[in-house]
C-alpha cells in the first residue's frame, strides 16, 4: 500500500514522513548512512579501493604512468580524476558518451583535490621538465543511491593512500629509465579531504540523502572539508538557504569528516 502511495504522490509521501521528524529509511535529519571501505582488491591497478556510503558504491582504481611534465609546471606531476556513471548504476543512464552528471562530478572531484592540496604534485616529479608521474584515478559508480561525491572522495583518498609507486632511476643524458619494481614507496598524502551532501526539502535540511530524496529535493549542498578547513562548497542553484542553515551544515560536515578520516586510516592499517 505504501509502495503505491510512494509512486502516486511522492512529494506528499515524503512530506508526511518529515512531519514526524523522520525519513522513510528510519533516519533522523542529521544522521548519515554507514560507510564501508575496502582497499587493494584490484591487483592490476597500482592502487584501488571500494567505498560504500549506504548503498551507493564507488570503486576507484589508480594507474600510474610516466609522462613529460607540462612546460608551465615543469616540476609537477599529474593527478587526473575521472568519474564514470555507467548504465549499470542506475536506470537513468543510457550507454553512450559521459552524461552531464558524470562530467560535473569529475570537475567537482578535481576541484576538491586541487583546493585541498592533499597530494603535493611536486612529489610526483622525477626529473624537472623531462619525466613525471601521471596518476589516472578512475572512479566507477556501481550503484547510485545519493551522495555520489561523498563516496567518490572516500574511495579516491583510500585508493591514493594504498598506492605504492616504484622508484625510478632516470638518466637525462641518455634518456634512460630504469624502474625498480621491488622498491616501492607510498605517496605523500598530507590530509584526507572528505565531502558531505545535504538536501533541502521545504524548509528542512537532511544530511546524506538517498537518490529518492535527492530527486525530490529543492536544493542540494555539497561541502568538502580537510581537517578544520573548508575547501569546497557547491550549491548549484535551487531554493535559497539561510546563513544559519549553511553554518549548521558546515558544523555537521566537520563532525562527519573526523569519522571518515578515522575509517580510512583503519582500513589502511588492515592493508598493512
Amino acid at each position, binding site marked *: 500500500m505504501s509502495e503505491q502511495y510512494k509512486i502516486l504522490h511522492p512529494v506528499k509521501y515524503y512530506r508526511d514522513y518529515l512531519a514526524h521528524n523522520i525519513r522513510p529509511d528510519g533516519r533522523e535529519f542529521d544522521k548519515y548512512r554507514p560507510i564501508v571501505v575496502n582497499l587493494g*582488491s*584490484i*591487483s*592490476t*591497478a597500482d592502487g*584501488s579501493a571500494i567505498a560504500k556510503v549506504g*548503498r551507493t*558504491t564507488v*570503486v576507484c*582504481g*589508480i*594507474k600510474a*604512468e610516466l609522462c613529460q611534465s607540462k612546460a608551465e609546471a615543469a616540476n609537477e606531476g599529474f593527478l587526473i580524476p*575521472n568519474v*564514470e556513471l*555507467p*548504465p*549499470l*548504476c*542506475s*536506470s537513468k543512464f*543510457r*550507454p553512450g558518451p559521459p552524461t552531464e552528471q558524470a562530467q560535473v562530478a569529475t570537475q567537482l572531484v578535481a576541484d576538491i583535490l586541487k583546493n585541498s592540496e592533499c597530494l603535493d604534485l611536486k612529489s610526483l616529479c622525477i626529473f624537472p621538465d623531462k619525466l613525471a608521474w601521471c596518476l*589516472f584515478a*578512475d572512479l*566507477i559508480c*556501481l*550503484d*547510485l*543511491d545519493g551522495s555520489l561525491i561523498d563516496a567518490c572522495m572516500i574511495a579516491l583518498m583510500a585508493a591514493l593512500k594504498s598506492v605504492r609507486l616504484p622508484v625510478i632511476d632516470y638518466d637525462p643524458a641518455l634518456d634512460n629509465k630504469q624502474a625498480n619494481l621491488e622498491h616501492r614507496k607510498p605517496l605523500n598524502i598530507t590530509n584526507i579531504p572528505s565531502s558531505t551532501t545535504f538536501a533541502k526539502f521545504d524548509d528542512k535540511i537532511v544530511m546524506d540523502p538517498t537518490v529518492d530524496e535527492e530527486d525530490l529535493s529543492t536544493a542540494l549542498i555539497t561541502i568538502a572539508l580537510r581537517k578544520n578547513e573548508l575547501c569546497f562548497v557547491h550549491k548549484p542553484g535551487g531554493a535559497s538557504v539561510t546563513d544559519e542553515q549553511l553554518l549548521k551544515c558546515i558544523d555537521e560536515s566537520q563532525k562527519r569528516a573526523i569519522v571518515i578520516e578515522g575509517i580510512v586510516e583503519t582500513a589502511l592499517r588492515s592493508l598493512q
Partner: protein
Amino acid sequence: MSKNRELLSKIGLRLDGRRADELRRIRCKLGVFTEPDGSAYLEQGLTKILAAVYGPHQVRGNRSKAQHDAAVVNCQFSMAVFSTGERKRRPRGDRKSTEISIHLRQALTAAIKTELYPWSQIDVYVEVLHADGGIYPACVNAATLALIDAGIPLKEYVCACTASLANNDVPMLDISHQEEIIGGPTLTVAALPMSGKIVLMEMSQRFHVDHLQKVLEKALQGCRDIKHILDEAVKSHIQDVGSSTGWANTT
C-alpha cells in the same frame, strides 16, 4: 621472454598449480545492487565481473527496433580502465568490446524466452573490474545469474568455459591470462549444459581437427560443472531472500 615455460609440466601441473581438468575457484553472489532489476557479481580465479540487468521495459531510443513477437536483448560490455595490466584507453566502443557485446547478446538470446515479452527490451550491462583470462565465459556466467536475479524466464542456464590443448595432446580447462599469452589454442564454448546444446563456439590459434572432439568434450564438461556451481549459488540466494521475507504471499 625466452623462458620456455610449458603449459603442462611433467607431473601434470599447470602454471598456477592446477591439474589439466580443474576449474579456477568460482565465487558468485546474486542481488548485489539495488538499482538494477537483477545484478550479480562473479569471480573466476582473479577475473572479477559485475553484471546488471534492467528490464523488461519499453524499447528506448529507436522505436523501430521493437519486435512484435519477441523482446529485444541489448548487451553492453565494458572493461574498467584499470582492469588490465596496461591502462585501457577506451573502456568501450573499441572493436574487441563491440565483438564481445555482440557475442554476449547472441549467447543470451538463445536462452531467454523472448517470445513472452513482445515490444519490450531487456538490457544487460557487464563491467569487468579485473581481467585475468576467460573474460567472455565469466561474463556469460555473470549475465546468466543477473538474469535469474531479475526474474526473467530462461529456458536453461547458459554457461561458458574455455579449453585448450597442451603438449599437442592433453586437453586443459579454464585458461588463465598467462596461459593465453604463452600460446596454445583457446576454444571458447557457451552451452546450455542440461540439454547439451552449444550456443556459441569460438577458437583462436589452431590445432589438428582430430583433437577437436576431446577439447570440446572437456569444455562441455566444464560448462556442466559451472552450472552446478551457479545453481548452488542461486538456491542459497533464494533461500536467503525467501526466509527473510517469511516465504510469505504479500497482498
